[in-house]
């Protein structure tokens, strides 16, 4: 590296060049945990967008060509007409080289342009997504939060009363819950409680809210939303609860063996404080790494759960666009789901570093 050497007091000292300074600054910045997490999230989002770009274009049976053939057949257009129509809907120039297409696509994405829907002409994909996204984030987020808290509580209970009948029962239950797929729970709920025992009216529970109500910040509307989201949330909880319970139990057991717990007890600290600040906090830490995986799992599973309950969120929209071969919508929804996962992971990382200062310093987890 080009350096200007200076002689100070007989000792040769190298003065860093501008490049070195920038590198040094970047390196120091990179050792900052938050900075690094942001960079990682951005790189992942970039990689995911690139991946979706090539996913739709480079697959066998190029969807664009398939779509062109489809409009030629159905609407009796010439190839050129169909071609230009497809180009405008996928919002990129089909004549351009793949690199130029890629640049255009990324440019459009940065402006929030995800193209227009193929099947419902004139609808912007982004508008559709913004309509459906909140419902999925709400139901999946609530499900994850409830099961996380419940799992933490039950798992700690199991660890405290280990080898008691309570522990054995809860262990068995959590093993079952962690094994059975969430859509199987969904089907059981629908068939047993909805259709056979008639505890609720299956038809009434469909959709995200009662269409006769106008969306407003009223108690009636909020209760209606909760009623419609109840089954999806319950299913998400049942589907993830077992994993939380088992992981909390094992992490709590390892914390209970630590010396600082003995010391805290010897100091005569109140039990409530030991449980919350000493055991709970440390036992919950390893669970945050699991949270990252389970966010993706729950959001991904929403395709099945929302389709099952006819809950009009992003998952059911993804399925709908796939079955209608609406490639632009499909690409957009997939991108948004993935970015939601990346951002949720990012949030989990930040929360983790707030709870465990060691992460910020050493950067390892």
């Amino acid at each position, binding site marked *: 590296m080009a350096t200007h050497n200076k002689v100070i007091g007989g000792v040769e000292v190298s003065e860093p060049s501008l490049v070195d300074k920038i590198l040094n600054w970047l390196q120091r910045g990179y050792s900052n945990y938050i900075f690094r997490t942001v960079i990682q999230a951005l790189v992942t989002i970039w990689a995911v967008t690139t991946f979706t770009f090539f*996913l739709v274009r480079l697959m066998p049976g190029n969807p664009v060509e398939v779509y062109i053939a489809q409009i030629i057949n159905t609407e009796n257009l010439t190839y050129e007409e169909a071609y230009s129509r497809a180009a405008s809907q996928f919002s990129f120039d089909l004549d351009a080289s793949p690199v130029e297409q890629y640049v255009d696509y990324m440019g459009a994405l940065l402006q929030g342009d995800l193209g227009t829907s193929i099947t419902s002409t004139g609808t912007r994909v982004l508008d559709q997504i913004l309509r459906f996204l909140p419902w999925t984030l709400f139901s999946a987020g609530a499900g994850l939060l409830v099961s996380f808290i419940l799992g933490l509580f039950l798992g700690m209970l199991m660890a405290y009363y280990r080898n008691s009948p309570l522990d054995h029962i809860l262990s068995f239950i959590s093993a079952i819950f962690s094994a059975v797929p969430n859509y199987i729970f969904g089907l059981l709920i629908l068939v047993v409680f909805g259709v056979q025992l008639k505890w609720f009216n299956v038809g009434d529970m469909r959709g995200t809210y009662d269409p006769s109500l106008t969306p407003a910040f009223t108690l009636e509307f909020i209760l209606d939303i909760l009623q419609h989201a109840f089954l999806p949330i319950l299913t998400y909880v049942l589907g993830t609860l077992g994993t939380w319970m088992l992981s909390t139990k094992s992490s709590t057991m390892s914390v209970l063996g630590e010396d600082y717990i003995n010391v805290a007890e010897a100091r005569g600290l109140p039990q409530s404080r030991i449980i919350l600040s000493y055991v709970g906090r440390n036992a919950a830490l390893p669970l945050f790494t699991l949270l990252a995986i389970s966010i993706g799992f729950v959001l991904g599973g929403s*395709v099945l759960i929302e389709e099952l309950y006819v809950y009009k969120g992003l998952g059911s929209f*993804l*399925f709908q666009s796939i*079955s209608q071969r609406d490639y632009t919508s499909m690409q957009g929804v997939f991108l948004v789901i993935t970015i939601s996962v990346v951002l949720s992971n990012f949030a989990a990382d930040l929360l983790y570093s707030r709870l465990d200062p060691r992460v910020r310093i050493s950067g390892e987890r």
Partner: protein
Amino acid sequence: MTTQATTPQVIVEDRSFFKPILDRLKIFWIGVTRNKSGFVGFLGLMFYVIVVIFGPVFVAFDDEVKLDQIAAPPGARVQLLTRVENVGTYTSLESLQGKTVGIVTNTGGELMVEDYLEKNPDAFTVEDERWRSGRGLDNMLDNLDAGDVDAMLIFSETVKRDVNEQTYPDLRVSNESLGQSYILGTDTQGRDIFTHIINGGRSLIMTALLAGFLSTMIALIFGAVAALVGGIVDRILTSIANFILVIPRFPLLVVLAALTNLNNFVLLAVLIAVLSWPVLMRAIRSQVLSLRERDYVEAAVALDLGMRHIIMREILPNMISFVAINLIFAVTGAMYEQIGLIFLGMAPINDYSWGVMLYFGRTRGTIFNPDSAMMVLAPVLAIAFFQVSMVLFARALEEIFNPRLRASV
């Protein structure tokens, strides 16, 4: 805490061939029976193995459409219907020798009579009516009522629905347990659900095993290579793993299935495997990293025993339990994704399986029909018990591989 015994020990190696195998079996058995829920899982798994391998040999897949048995509840059977005065006389097919028997085409009754006539060609004359959206049934009931036929065979659910004191005061059931009873009832086409459950697991379980095996293999190879080679290879493999990990797997599978027109099970297994290795790969990588630092591995390196010896003899045996347990979880994961895809109609549905039964539940509305609950419940429970057995068995394995337990043998 007990202190380590300091007396020098002389290790005598048992050279007999069967000893290690017997020891292992003994450990396995103790481990499996010690943990009650693990034992349940083990039994459940054995049950599935038997059903999947031998079930189809004994219970043939029923694909005969029977119009009068649409979505029959468990226990429903074919019944013999006669006029009041003949209730005591005509109680079985044998007692109808030389008489006239009425049936309706494509019903359980027709199939029974066909079977009987194959063995006894001259047993009785058969009068039949075409079904034609149920009209045939009414015609035949009228024939019976008028005395044109002596008895008729119909399905118990049809009797409950159509024959009562008001509609046909002169008709009575003389034998209500004729023919086979359907343990789980029939589906919306009158086909025996039980045979579908027995026959519908094989393709799913094979695909899940293949996917789980492939995914574990990829994880094992990539994890070991990343940890042992290190440097840029490690960084590339870890980045790929982290990247795949962040993409929600199921939506990607759905998208890929739609784009590739997924139509065979091997491709499905490969797709699932390619997307599911990262979690295990990262775990194996960190295990190998920590194992590499152990004294005995360093001793092996110092003794220059060779890479092959170090991997096969020092590192792998210490991870085999971990890998085995994760293989099981990989299989349950593959099962989840596979059935999910089939449920949505995105994976091969020409081969009838538990997943396809759920798919029909969704697309034909059987989920919401109280009469056809079994069509959904049976595959749901089959899948749920399989997954539970797998997980319970994996937990028993954890105990089997626990060194403290091994020491007690």
